[in-house]
């Protein structure tokens, strides 16, 4: 008989050791042994990625490792979610994230994805050069809490305004927390000017802003 603790430990260890196949295999065995998918997520995947997130925050592991850990977790998470009845899994918070239209710099959002995932915010990464319609469509489909737009270039940061204006036009502005970030931002002034909820120029600053806004606006405590 398969021991539940043993399986959850294997899932955790696999994330901590960056073992994609082993993580997936342990998750599969867990399901086969009758452990609910949600329990494997909450008892195995979530704590392990948080451990990696904490280690990154303390400067003990490099960012690429956190990103590899997030990949390992995502792979198993996708499998487990697919095994569940549609709509039965709801992460604590979900964020739709992308680089704005015309901007092809996506390193920042990859970093944000890994760190936010490690802190309990599920990320729908739309990638680079994302038009406003795609942000809104994804947010609606995923029932997101946050829309995050990134711009590295001062020439493309206007697109952050384009997205928020589109949200206003469709009457969706207050439905989402709107976060802006990226290297283009000259200051918080831009955030105020376009009416965004928060801004950041690096990942940890963004995480703090997201956590605070989720707490204040959604009563979600990560």
């Amino acid at each position, binding site marked *: 008989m398969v021991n539940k603790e043993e399986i959850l430990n294997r899932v955790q260890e696999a994330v901590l050791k*960056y073992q994609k196949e082993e993580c997936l295999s342990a998750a599969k065995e867990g399901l086969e042994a009758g452990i609910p998918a949600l329990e494997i997520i909450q008892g195995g995947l979530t704590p392990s990625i948080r451990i990696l997130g904490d280690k990154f925050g303390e*400067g*003990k*592991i*490099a*960012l*690429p*490792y956190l*990103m*590899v850990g997030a*990949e390992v977790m995502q792979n198993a998470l996708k499998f487990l979610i697919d095994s569940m009845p549609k709509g039965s899994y709801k992460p604590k918070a979900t964020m739709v994230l992308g680089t704005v239209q015309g901007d092809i710099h*996506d*390193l920042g959002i*990859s970093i944000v994805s890994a760190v936010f995932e490690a802190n309990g915010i599920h990320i729908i990464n739309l990638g680079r050069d994302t038009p406003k319609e795609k942000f809104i469509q994804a947010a609606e489909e995923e029932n997101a809490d946050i829309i995050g737009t990134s711009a590295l270039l001062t020439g493309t940061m206007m697109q952050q305004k384009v997205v928020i204006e589109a949200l206003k036009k469709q009457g969706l502005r207050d439905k989402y927390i709107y976060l802006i970030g990226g290297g283009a*931002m000259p*200051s*918080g002034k831009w955030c105020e000017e376009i009416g965004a909820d928060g801004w950041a*120029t*690096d990942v940890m*600053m963004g995480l703090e802003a997201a956590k605070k806004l989720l707490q204040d606006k959604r009563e979600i405590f990560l």
Partner: protein
Amino acid sequence: MIEGQKVKFPGLKHMWRIATKDQLEVLDNAAYKILSEMGVHIDDKDCIKYLKDAPVEIDEKELIVKFPEYWVREMIAKAPRSYILAGRTPDKDLEVLSAERDFYTLITSGATKMYNWNEESNQWDSEDPGEKDVQRAFKMVDAIDAYEGFYGTLVEDVERTKQGLPAELHTAYNKLKYSSKFGGVCAITEGGLRQWDYLGQLAAEVQGGLDELKKRPILAGLPTCIGPLTSTRQNFWAAVGSAKYHLPTMPYFGGTAPFTSPATAPAQAALSLACTHYCIAVSQYLDPGTAAVPWPYTTFTDPQTGQLAGNPLSHLVSGMATQVYQDLYNLPTSSCNYCLTSPLDEASANWFGAILSQALWGGNIAQIGTTPQAFMWETIPMGETLINYVKQMFFEMNEDLLNFDEEHLALDVIKRVGPKGMFTTDPHTLKWIDKKFGLFWHANDWIHEHSDQWLAKGGKTWTEICRERLKELDKHEPEPLAKDVDERMQKLLVEADEELALF
């Protein structure tokens, strides 16, 4: 993954050369000519007596000794090419195995005045340092990995000096007590050879006896020519005292251009080499096989103001003379870089240039000299950052990383990731960042932060950040000495005070 692991500095694959080997030989030959034809003034007849059986030419009236080239070469050949500069325990030892490979950073200053930042009045207070300051400095350095030992002291025990007591011995005791790292040179002045005896006994207590001290020397001597071809009795005693306890020597030239050293770089280097050759020769004659770490330095005095100043010329000369020992003798050497101007921001910029150039030119023992004229505590963490930056650069230049084989060129990886991909999580990236992560240097937050964030946190200058780090460093408690060892050392100090007090 390296987590808190101390990584030995790997040394350079290609040291930068200022002069060709032929040019270095010109300098070296000039040094021999100076020693054999002009000689060295040793200002004490008793000191000259130590050389009576050596094949040297002594002018007893002028107290000038001329040294034949063959004999100096013979003596330099006796100096070992590898040795240990020991810490209190073997894990703190600095292994100098080759002139081409091993590189260590030792801190020094020797300041007799210090500036303390007064947070209430928002200005600097100028003060004489005392024993508490001496101890504070040693404890701080003990906490910082970037400083692998001491070359000299940081601040001097001025209070005790004013009382006519052998302050140098008390400072050495405090160094041995409040840091377990290699202690470096001790400058003994009026106390003479008796004071050297006390010093040797203090060091022997810490290392577990005289025999152990000889095997793992934690202190060193600084035989010197303090002026052009001039060796005082204090300079000479350093060779005699070191020899008695088989301590390494760090032969040094204390000339300053263009006053006690000529105005041109090759002349400065030749004179400097003559003086350090002399110091090595005497030390090896007195104690063959003792480690010698030559420091062929020339300082610079600004001819417009008469102030001792940091100057690129002095670093160039020091680098060139250093390379004579490395390339012609395969002898590890010492180089020096001081933080020599009062405005800390200007000092740190100059200092960085000096540290980097000395490191690139290959001095094995780099002296990281904080402000010697008027010590500022902030320079301790400043130097730490500068050293770590240079070490990080050197780490990238070692042969394991700066290699041009398939693995390092990684064309297969570039192909695998492809035009639209990212290398961040590729196994090749993970493999190679492991070797570098958390090694030596990363920017202070304000360097890569957005300026508004920096301002929001108070817009602190680097000096202010260093000031905050001092508060952290002050919390460090070094590994204590064994109680009985400490008691015996304190007893020695009481005896030394009674015997050597001036009044």
